[in-house]
């Protein structure tokens, strides 16, 4: 059963059929999936959703697939954790972590978009998946392609973190490292996409792919007891996730599943790659691309495709954009680990550190309910903190050796 009517250009409103197309042929604006909300409203209620298995497909009417999911049946419904220890350190009372560092199967929010994209690609008849990636997407496309029995070609910047390379190769994909940054990789991929009949998840079938991340927002609203937070802090790379979380909240509002949405959406970037937050701070609605230089490689996109809409989302919601240095990112990772026992990757260090900054600036207030988005797992970016966590204390296998080091008697 499909609730998708077609595609529509976000810029000029031109309408297209449901096909593998991602850019308006008239004005080059991004295309968006059109849903039949009247019919969805008729079939989808809180009770219907609550009875379904705890994974992202419990919102399937709001996802752009026609049949059953083909891969990743257990993706999503990750914990929304109330983090009182962290809240205390930061000086607020009502703080949550949406923890996609434990998303299934590859430990990042990308499993949501990829499960959607591969299902859609299989529906369109593709047998080969491909992507340009900063790492998390690579892991996910490789893993879920294996599950779906489709071939995959994955393009990454050659200097990516070792664990992200290993965590891609293990699935038996074709991995191609490019001597360049993500924007170079992406540009090359667009040319490759033009010449091969492959489903590039973030190019060929982008409108469908992107909607998978709406489930991150749906889950937050449901897990908070069918309401939205006062604030949400979101890591920004291409700006897709931040716009889709906002879309998710607005769709739930429109469908009557929650009350009025008054959430402030905050964009979080690394200072070494902050085209979106810089535009917000300078009051611009257009992006000046940058050449990234940060340890937060998973969000190092200097020329963000949806940057304009990222800025628009933040403005519309009354939020703001802030960025943090590499040192602050490392401190953010350590702070979350040491207060809450959650080990996130660099992008999570960015959202934690930015939240801290926003609280200090008074933009996030003490009594408000705030959700920090944690989108990836720290085990994948160990290099970023390897020199910053100390080393084990080495002793001889004797009690006396231990006592020499730690002193005292019991």
């Amino acid at each position, binding site marked *: 059963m499909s609730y998708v009517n077609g595609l529509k250009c976000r*810029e000029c409103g031109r309408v297209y059929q449901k*096909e*593998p*197309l*991602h*850019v*308006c*042929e*008239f*004005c*080059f*604006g*991004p295309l968006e999936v059109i849903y039949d909300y009247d019919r969805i409203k008729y079939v989808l209620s809180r009770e219907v959703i609550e009875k379904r298995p705890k994974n992202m497909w419990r919102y399937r009417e709001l996802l752009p697939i026609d049949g059953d999911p083909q891969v990743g049946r257990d993706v999503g419904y990750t914990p929304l954790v109330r983090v009182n220890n962290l809240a205390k350190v930061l000086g607020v009372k009502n703080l949550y972590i949406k923890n996609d560092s434990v998303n299934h199967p590859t430990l990042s929010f990308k499993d949501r978009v990829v499960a959607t994209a591969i299902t859609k690609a299989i529906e*369109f*008849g*593709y047998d080969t998946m491909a992507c*340009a990636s900063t790492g998390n997407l690579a892991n996910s496309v490789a893993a879920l392609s294996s599950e779906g029995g489709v071939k995959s070609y994955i393009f990454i910047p050659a200097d990516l973190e070792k664990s992200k390379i290993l965590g891609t190769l293990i699935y038996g994909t074709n991995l191609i490292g490019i001597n360049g940054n*993500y*924007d170079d990789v*992406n*540009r090359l*991929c*667009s*040319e490759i*996409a*033009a*010449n091969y*009949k492959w489903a*590039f998840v*973030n*190019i*060929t079938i*982008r409108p469908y792919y992107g909607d998978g991340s709406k489930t991150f927002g749906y889950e937050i609203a449901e897990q908070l007891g069918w309401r939205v937070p006062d604030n949400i802090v979101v890591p920004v*790379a*291409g700006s*897709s996730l931040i716009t889709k979380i906002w879309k998710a909240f607005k769709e739930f509002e429109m469908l009557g599943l929650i009350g009025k949405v008054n959430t402030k959406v905050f964009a979080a970037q690394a200072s070494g790659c902050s085209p979106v937050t810089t535009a917000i701070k300078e009051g611009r609605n*257009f992006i*000046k*691309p940058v050449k990234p230089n940060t340890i937060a490689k998973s969000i190092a*996109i*200097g*020329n*963000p*495709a949806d940057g*304009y809409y990222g800025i628009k989302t933040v403005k519309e919601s009354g939020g703001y954009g802030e960025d943090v240095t590499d040192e602050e990112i490392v401190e953010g990772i350590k702070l979350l680990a040491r207060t809450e026992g959650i080990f996130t990757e660099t992008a999570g260090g960015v959202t934690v550190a930015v939240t801290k900054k926003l609280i200090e600036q008074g933009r996030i207030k003490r009594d408000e309910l705030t959700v920090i988005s944690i989108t990836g797992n720290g085990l994948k970016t160990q290099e970023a903190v390897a020199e910053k966590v100390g080393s084990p204390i080495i002793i001889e296998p004797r009690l006396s050796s231990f006592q020499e080091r730690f002193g005292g008697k019991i």
Partner: protein
Amino acid sequence: MAVKVRIPSPLQKLTKNQSEVTVNGKNIRELFLDLEKQYPGIKNRLYDESGNLRRFINIYINEEDIRFLKNEDSEVKDGDSVSIIPAIAGGGCVILYRRADLQI
């Protein structure tokens, strides 16, 4: 200056199906004026109603985004290659395919 401009496939209907055309001018603005003169109708696709370059089109001189240079005032010299590239897909994305190719 005679400069080659690469045309993305959605605009090739306007350039008699040519993926590359040669136009004259000393900067991007002049090149696009000449492009419109040679291939009427293309200006509407590149510029919005208020005369600004459309938001989702990126222009490159050789490999460099003109936003790193002087935008439409960026100068060109003989032999340069200019690319008109749709912006979608997590950064500079080229759509050079024809729709028919996607029918699988």
